[in-house]
Structures are given as C-alpha cells and as structure tokens.
C-alpha cells in the first residue's frame, strides 16, 4: 500500500508514454491513445466520486433530519445511488416539442464538460496532477465561468417560463459571485506570488495559509466557502432551481440521462470547489506541519498525501452540505444584496490587508 502510494503519477505517465511510443510508431496514434487513457481514467475517477458524494449527501441530510436515509440497496444503502443512476439511464429523455432541440440537448453537455475541465489543475496527491499549468488558479476561475452559459442555455431552450426565470436568476447570481470567489482566490495568490497550483501547495510546507495568514486569510476562506456555494448553485443559494418557487428552475424540463448530467455536474462542481478551497487555504495534499517541529512534521508525513487531500476536501464538502440542510433559501434581491453590499466590499478591503501583509512579510 505504502509502496503504491509512493509511486508518483508522473513516473506512471512517463512509463505509459514510453511503452506506447515503443509499440506504436505513429506519433499521432500515441497522442490519441494517451488522450483516451487520460479521459477514461478521469471518468473512472469521477463516476465513483459522484456516487459517493450522492450517497454522502443523502446520509448527511438524513442524519441531520433524524432519519436513517437510504438503507435498502446494498450494505447500508450504499448502492442506492447506483440504482438511481440505472433508473435515470433507463428513463425516457424527453425533449419538449416547442423547445430549441439543439440547444436543449447541448446544455447538459456543456455543464458537465465544463465541470470536468476544471479538474485539470487540481493536485490530488503528491505529484498527482493532470496538468500543472502556470496559471492554475486563473484557469480554474475562467473555465468555471463557462458553466453559466450551459445553465442559461438550458433555461432558454426549454420553452418553459419557470426554466427561464431560473436561468435569469442563476445568470445574475453566478456572474456576481464570481467576483468574490476571484478576490478570495487572489488573496492567496498575493501571498504565494504564483498562480501555479503546485507552487501554492509547496508554499504551505511550513503551515497552511489559513493558519499562517492570520484573520484576513480566514475571512477570505469564509468568503470563498460562501461565494463558491453560490457559484455552484447549492442551497441556500439554489435560486436557479428553487424547488418551492420554480419547481426545478432551469432543469424543469429535463429528464432521464440529461437530468442525470446536471446532477453529475453539480456533484463534480461541489468536489472541485472544495478541492480548490482545500488546496489554496488548507494546503492541498500537504500534511499538517507546524513550523520547525521536525519530529511532529515527520509523523504527519507518514499519512499518505492523498488522504490529506481528500480529508480536507471532504471536510469542506461537509460544511457546504450542512449549509444546504440547515438554512432557508435567500430571495433573489437578498442574494445580490449579500454579494454587493457585504461579500464584495469586505473581500476588497480584505485583499488590501492581505497585500499589506504580504509586502511587510507579516505572515509566518
């Protein structure tokens, strides 16, 4: 087990590449095969992940609501979500007659593909990263902004007034909250001096930013969690689907597999924002280190880096889930008030503080 975890991802990738290059003479074929391998392995990771998140959400909700949750299919109901997926797969995918069929079918794909693209620069463990590009943080915030178009498209093309209202709401919401997310990410970028994910993780070798950065980083972490909950359209910011108001908002008309895609995208997004929060504020795969306590740091290093990463990510996921099962939903104007009157000014001032802190070197 330990041996397996110490094999770095890049060495596996190089091994596969040399083997493929050896067997196939054609350079193009090698590239295509590698792309296919990367895509399939990502899918093989994502689908079980989404199953787990779906199961986790149900169980968390159930325990908070003094229920048992799914407990029929599989041990402790763990296969319930698989059964549900099979049900969704077998269901008829309805397309409303009056809808714009091309866009109606395109929208869920855009949403899913976008959320998968954002996975690229995330470091899952030590040396385990799909694409360590130099502007990782900027890439994440840029690519995730495409998702809103998928939602707008879904709402528009459904030929349904509820969908349209939901799409309008989510458009206003995502565009606004992107600012706060961006600003809270920037505060870490300022402290690190790099947009590269691996640099950001390495900079937390002697302590995570949430501890090193005093109160300003704590504030930006809180703002990040709130604003990214809004970014991924989860309660209490789920105005785009707002069951009690708009029945299901932008995906009212979707059924079967197309609906499942929205669900898939929601869980991938949930994982992605939590992973980014964990990477930027809680040190990603970096074990818990305290300054110069060598012995303590050494013990912490024994815990595999992937465990650290997933532990932190799921802690954030749990918080976001608890939000969903605790709070009432905001109204559309209050949503924008929260962003423009509270989160944005605070995070702007906060960035100023962080900058001063970074220049003066007041962090550890």
């Amino acid at each position, binding site marked *: 087990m330990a041996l397996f975890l110490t094999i770095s991802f890049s060495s596996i990738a190089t091994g596969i590449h040399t083997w493929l290059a050896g067997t196939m003479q054609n350079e193009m074929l090698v590239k295509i095969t590698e792309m296919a391998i990367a895509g399939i392995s990502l899918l093989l990771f994502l689908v079980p992940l989404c199953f787990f998140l779906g199961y986790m959400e149900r169980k*968390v909700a159930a*325990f*908070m*609501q*003094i*229920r*048992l949750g799914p*407990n029929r299919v599989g041990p402790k109901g763990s296969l319930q979500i698989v059964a549900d997926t099979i049900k969704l797969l077998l269901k008829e995918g309805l397309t409303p007659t009056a809808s714009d069929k091309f866009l109606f079918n395109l929208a869920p794909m855009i949403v899913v593909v976008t959320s998968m693209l954002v996975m690229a620069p995330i470091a899952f463990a030590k040396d385990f990263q799909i694409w360590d590009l130099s502007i990782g943080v900027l890439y994440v915030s840029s690519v995730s902004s495409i998702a809103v178009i998928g939602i707008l498209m879904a709402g528009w093309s459904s030929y349904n007034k509820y969908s349209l209202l939901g799409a309008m709401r989510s458009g206003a919401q995502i565009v606004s909250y992107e600012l706060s997310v961006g600003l809270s990410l920037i505060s870490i970028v300022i402290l690190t001096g790099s947009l590269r994910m691996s640099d950001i993780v390495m900079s937390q070798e002697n302590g995570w930013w949430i501890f090193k950065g005093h109160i300003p980083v704590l504030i930006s972490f809180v703002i990040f969690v709130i604003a990214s909950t809004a970014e991924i359209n989860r309660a209490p910011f789920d105005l785009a689907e707002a069951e009690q108001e708009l029945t299901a908002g932008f995906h009212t008309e979707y059924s079967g597999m197309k609906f499942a895609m929205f669900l898939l995208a929601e869980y991938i997004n949930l994982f992605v924002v939590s992973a980014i929060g964990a990477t930027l504020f809680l040190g990603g795969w970096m074990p818990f280190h305290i300054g110069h306590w060598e012995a303590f740091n050494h013990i912490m290093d024994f815990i595999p880096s992937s465990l650290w990463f997933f532990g932190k990510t799921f802690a954030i996921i749990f918080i976001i889930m*608890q*939000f969903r*099962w*605790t*709070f009432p939903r905001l109204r559309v104007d209050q949503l924008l008030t929260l962003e423009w009157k*509270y989160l944005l000014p605070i995070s702007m001032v906060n960035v100023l503080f962080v900058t001063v802190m970074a220049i003066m070197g007041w962090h550890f």
Partner: protein
Amino acid sequence: MFLKDYFVTIYKSVGSLLKGMKVTGYYFTHPKEIQTQEYPDNRATLQMFDRFKGEVVMPHDENNEHRCTGCQACEIACPNGTIKIITKQELQPDGKKKKAIDTFVYHLELCTMCNMCVTACPSDAIKMAQTFEHSVYDKRQLKKVLNAPGSKLMEGVE
C-alpha cells in the same frame, strides 16, 4: 454610526446562522435521536393501539357463532353505504320464524373508518380490527362478507 451597524449586522447574522448549524450538527452527531421506524421490518414488533380503526370485523367464537341479529342499525348508521345486510327468515326450534342474517356485506373500499356502525350496534356484534395493510391488486377483494360460512347467532343475543 453606519459602520458600526454594518458590522453588528454581520456579527448577529453569522451568530444566528451558526446557531442553526449547531442544531443540525447536534443531530448529525447523535444518531440515537433518529426517529425512523423501519416499517416492513418491524412488523413482528409493531403494536397498534387497541382502539385503532383498521376495518370492521365480526368476531366469532369457537362454536362459529356471532352476535349479529340482523337489525340493520349499522347499515342505517353508515354514512357511505359501506354495509349491506341481506337477511333471511330462519325457522326456530319452537316453530316460529325469526329474522337472521344471510350475508353481512362490508365494502372496505367505501369505508371511512368513522366507527358509526360500531357505536350504533345494539348487540356488540361488530368491532374495529387493528389491521391496516389493506392494499390489494383487485378491488373486488375489498368487498368482504363478515359472517363466516355456516355461522349462527349466539345463544341469548336478542
């Protein structure tokens, strides 16, 4: 003081949100509070209240005797026409003819469990049973005959 109000609002709001999260967090960490009754699994231990109104039944004793005289008080008392009693004239040992029930038809599908028939019955012939799993695939099965075949009126019940 605008700024003071601003921060006091934030402080109070965050406080109230954390209070809410404390409640859900408490229940998340205390699985003993779970209220779910796993219904089909707890059938063996499930105890219905003795007054629970499940369906109308006519108790018979070991001699296959019931207490229904066929007075039709229940049929009149029923608001929905759930009960239909078909009577016959039975020859008594002393040569007199006496009214007795032939079939006591009970339409469970029409019954609202209002208990009017049971209170109307002068001879306590019918009562409410505690069964509650009434679903069937064919609704004709819900039309029941309450008196057992070959049953007789109990001695001494007028």
